């Protein structure tokens, strides 16, 4: 098993005719993901290497029954694309787009909650989801990962690759790797994804890769203490980040004492989560636990 994407995934892509959109869609298809369609307004009736393109999500949904949407459109169109996919009944929307205005994210989050509570949003500003050996939806370089039983959930793309690859070098693999994105209002939180890993039979250990800003890691710590029986190893990036400066991810800004890496690491450790000080140490801790 795995979480969110697998052999049953039927993927449709918003922005499939764009340069990045087509490149990564075809990459995902080569990996074995079942790509059933794409949406680009004004380009309905065309195809991208045999993948049919539709003007609207309603058309794509009716003709190709996707259960997963990937959003690759530019930031100013992304909010509407997400909501349109949800309104068409797509259950899982994975938004790769970076640079969406925070107010749009807030509107999307609250509209989904009110009008489309059955649609789950992952991202935006995330690398997507990879379930090794089954499906890849997004931009995660799949060749560096193998099948296994470590579930990874992360706010950062490349940091995930770093940790996942170190685990792979030690001979272990991943059930799924889920990038939730580094933006201020992510569609899904650590807690949402950890809940899935806890329920997933294949996942034996969960790795959480967080960073400065917000309180998602602290909330995860609380949830883990109350609900999670599987071992969790965590990493927090940004110990040396100066206060008040934004470090790339829109969410990664420290203001005052809350949201610092030290506070997050402490919150996790106090609730029994082992926190590695470097990505290498995280992989070592994970491997130690897996080897029993």
């Amino acid at each position, binding site marked *: 098993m795995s979480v969110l994407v697998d052999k049953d995934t039927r993927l449709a892509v918003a922005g499939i005719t764009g340069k990045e959109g087509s490149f990564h869609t075809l990459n995902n298809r080569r990996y074995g993901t079942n790509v059933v369609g794409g949406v680009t307004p004004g380009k309905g009736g065309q195809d991208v290497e045999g993948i049919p393109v539709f003007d609207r999500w309603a058309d794509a949904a009716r003709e190709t029954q996707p259960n997963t949407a990937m959003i690759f459109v530019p930031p100013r169109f992304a909010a509407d694309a997400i909501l349109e996919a949800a309104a068409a009944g797509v259950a899982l929307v994975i938004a790769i787009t970076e640079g969406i205005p925070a107010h749009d994210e807030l509107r999307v989050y*609250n509209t989904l909650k009110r009008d489309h509570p059955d649609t789950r949003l992952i991202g935006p500003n995330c690398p997507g989801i990879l379930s090794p050996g089954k499906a890849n939806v997004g931009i995660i370089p799949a060749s560096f990962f193998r099948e296994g039983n470590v579930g990874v959930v992360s706010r950062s793309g490349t940091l995930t690759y770093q940790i996942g690859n170190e685990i792979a070098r030690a001979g272990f693999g991943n059930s799924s790797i889920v990038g939730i994105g580094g933006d201020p209002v992510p569609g899904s939180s650590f807690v949402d994804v950890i809940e899935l890993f806890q329920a997933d039979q294949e996942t034996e250990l969960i790795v959480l890769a967080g960073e400065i800003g917000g309180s*998602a890691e602290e909330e995860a710590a609380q949830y883990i203490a109350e609900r999670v029986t599987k071992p969790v190893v965590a990493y927090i990036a940004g110990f040396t980040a100066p206060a008040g400066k934004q*470090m790339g*991810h829109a969410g990664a800004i420290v203001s005052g004492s809350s949201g610092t890496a030290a506070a997050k690491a402490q919150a996790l450790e106090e609730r029994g989560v082992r926190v590695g000080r470097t990505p290498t140490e995280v992989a070592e801790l994970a491997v130690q636990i897996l080897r029993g």
Partner: protein
Amino acid sequence: MDLLEYQGKQLFARHGLAVSPGKAVTTVEDAVTAAAEVGYPVVVKAQVLIGGRGKAGGVKLAADEAQAREHASNILGMDIHGHTVRKLWIEHASDIASEYYASVLLDRQAKQPLVMFSTEGGVDIEEVAEKTPEKLVRHHVDALEGLSREEAVKIATDGQADADVVAGVADALVALYEVWMQEDATLAEINPLIVTPERQVKALDAKVSLDGNALYRHPDNQGLSDAENEDPIERRAKEQGVQYVALDGDIGILGNGAGLVMSTLDVVAQAGGSPANFLDAGGGSDAAKIKQAVELILSNVRVKAVLFNIFGGITRCDEVAKGLIAAFEDLKPSVPFVVRLDGTNDVAGRQLLGEAALPNVHPAATMNEAAEKVVALAKGQG
């Protein structure tokens, strides 16, 4: 993007919030002229993006021209917690009966807008929140509905605003919410929100942060960045579409992906080094962008060694190698480089670097090894 006080007040005025008449100036002469225009007494206020201006001597009352001149010349050029004062806001002084506090911000935990109000204004609001939390009203707004006037009246009443200004405070809260919503702000704060003896409710200060990602739909706000107070390298980086943050150390850092770069800073610090910058070259950088990034890093004269830490996903390691080789041809750097390349096309990238045999470039197999090497080189022990 944080706004200076006077820029925030201009946005406030656009949405009907009462502010005092004033002028932004950059010279003592202009300050004196502005003071005469707005009318004495005036307040001379340093315009810097840092709190604690008053305590640092950056806010002074002037009753006449001599005082205005004296304060303006003292404050211009003053250093306030590392920020040099280059601009003053000259405002007609207000009579104050009460000092309140009001703000609207994005509550990331609740994923809703949060309106806060207190009658304990003019002081550090975090202290109010900690010591007398009952005096700070927190109200979550339905992001899809917005703040209604009825809600605003309730917030003002719950916060125990004086009965005769509840309506005025409610109007101010609705206007502040409108600023936050319509200008794509992540924070809009007034501290203090004053009540004058004539019972007018007025914003005496303004702290506004705008969302840079939304600037495309606010052409009027695009000129508001505080260009002259920005770090010059940070400004150039922004123009090149690269994320760069200046830090205090001497080890230049380049990586791809914000999380990995933050992690690299931490690993370098753990190895005993001190990073000179955060630089995220972003996903899919080509050779030209990498070369520009190297130029940015080297334009900081404090840099004694540089660490490249790349885990290529969309970024291709051969492009990174080509960029580094091009940078060496053009810039002939005098400081050592440590390069760790993993991920997409890593073998090709390492091969290119090997063949180029760049002077003083040291490969590293892992992130930890790279950090240790660069720290040793920066300390002259390489």
